[in-house]
């Protein structure tokens, strides 16, 4: 029925076996351009920074959970020496009381010598502390329960060992919690800022790519391409750029954390290392953290594709 099939002087019986070497699925938006490479670099840097903040927030959040667990399971009983009191008997009595209280896992009374050693950093060694009224400490580890029954222990102590005071570190815990929460909120804000900056960069790049490919868009329109089809082509193009940039940035961030984890052993032995260790834990992100980095990289790629599609579609709708 077509002119082509009824044409008389066609080359006889052409071999219509598909040519193996036939190139046939080149993307309609040219893959390589200087602007494209620049966008990949911008996305890689943004992804790297976004993964660093996300990973940092995860480290702090995990570490703070560890403190909460550690600190809230441990309480300290303090017994201050009073005139005419047998402090050893008081310590033994308080330890016994604690041992029989509900929810207690382990009780360890520090000896007089251990208590004195605790003061050494402040008072120096070589002092004779025997004359000083040094308070004695009993460390009580509670069972691993969600809400250890500190009140019961406090009541038991008040009844059986007057003069013993209980410190459940709640004040410390609240401070650490506040600090960790502040760091996580700050990191989340940074993360949002970076995503917004990246969204804008992708927007500019998309508009640039559309201006650079105006001829292609026009030809596609003339050969009957719908706006949705054209915007899908741009989306695919930017998704590829986004994936490349996202994976490069994500891989660099993963390498950074892996390197930091390896180096953290050195840090812990140095001055200030313990503080860093307390804040970030072992600096080890764990599978969840690396999963988050991969998720951020992929999400950034998908976001890049989606943003460009929306912009292209809107732009095409305005062209009439």
């Amino acid at each position: 029925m077509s002119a082509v099939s009824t044409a008389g002087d066609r080359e006889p019986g052409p071999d219509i076996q598909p040519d193996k070497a036939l190139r046939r699925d080149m993307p309609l938006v040219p893959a390589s351009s200087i602007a494209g490479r620049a966008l990949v670099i911008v996305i890689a840097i943004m992804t790297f920074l976004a993964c660093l903040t996300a990973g940092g927030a995860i480290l702090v959040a995990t570490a703070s959970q560890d403190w909460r667990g550690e600190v809230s399971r441990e309480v300290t009983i303090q017994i201050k020496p009073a005139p005419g009191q047998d402090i050893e008997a008081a310590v033994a009595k308080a330890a016994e009381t604690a041992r029989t209280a509900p929810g207690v896992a382990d009780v360890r009374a520090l000896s007089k010598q251990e208590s004195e050693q605790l003061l050494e950093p402040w008072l120096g060694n070589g002092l004779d502390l025997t004359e000083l009224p040094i308070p004695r400490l009993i460390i009580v580890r509670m069972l691993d329960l969600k809400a250890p029954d500190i009140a019961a222990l406090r009541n038991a102590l008040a009844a059986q060992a007057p003069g013993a005071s209980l410190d459940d570190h709640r004040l410390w815990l609240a401070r650490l919690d506040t600090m960790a929460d502040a760091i996580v909120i700050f990191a989340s804000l940074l993360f949002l800022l970076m995503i917004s900056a990246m969204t804008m960069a992708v927007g500019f790049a998309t508009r640039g790519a559309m201006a650079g490919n105006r001829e292609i868009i026009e030809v596609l329109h003339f050969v009957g391409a719908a706006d949705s089809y054209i915007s899908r082509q741009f989306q695919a193009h930017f998704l590829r750029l986004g994936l490349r940039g996202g994976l490069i940035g994500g891989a660099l961030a993963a390498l950074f954390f892996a390197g930091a984890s390896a180096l953290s052993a050195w840090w812990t032995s140095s001055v200030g290392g313990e503080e860093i260790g307390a804040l970030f834990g072992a600096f080890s992100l764990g599978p969840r953290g690396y999963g988050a980095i991969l998720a951020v990289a992929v999400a950034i790629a998908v976001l890049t594709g989606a943003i460009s599609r929306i912009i292209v579609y809107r732009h095409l709708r305005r062209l009439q």
Partner: protein
Amino acid sequence: MGVEVVRDLSFSIKPQSFQFLTGPSGAGKTTLLRLMLLSLKPTRGIVKIFGQDASTLDKDEITGFRRRIGVVFQDFRLLDHLTTYENVALPLRVMGRAEASYRAEVVELLRWVGLGERMNALPAVLSGGEKQRAAIARALIARPELLLADEPTGNVDPGLARRLLRLFVELHKSGTAVVIATHDLALMDQFGEARRLVVGDGRLQIFDGDSP
């Protein structure tokens, strides 16, 4: 508002008809073709396409109509990063058809227009005549109801021009309305029964062709 290129002219392209659109350079041939292709809107007057007023069409309808129109541009408008095969297959590709479903068709048409050996070549390495043939093949591949061609034989030797004209005539016989803008008198004389639309000074004169 720009200069009025053509004014107060009325004509219709009947289904399955064949006409040359001719006139001196700058007379408005390309403008008329663009009006028919819906890439220009008239400042006044009505363009009706496939029985519908073009000014009432939304974008999706325009897309639908463009799939029924094949167009050969004077400057070819091949996409530089696509091979000859990919350029010619473009109208079928944008319809969402699977590549395997049209491969044989495209290869056959490319061989017919003499580009069988140039399927993987990029436009940058094609000669003017080869680009011309690729542009024509792209316009024909979707078997349009209306074919608009702007100087389609401008860059080819007389022998190939005759062969391409025969292709357009075959297409017309199989049911496509053909409009060829040209000022090549020799070409028009080869198909005397075609109608001639002559633009000049913004006006249009219509000469019916010899009876077939």
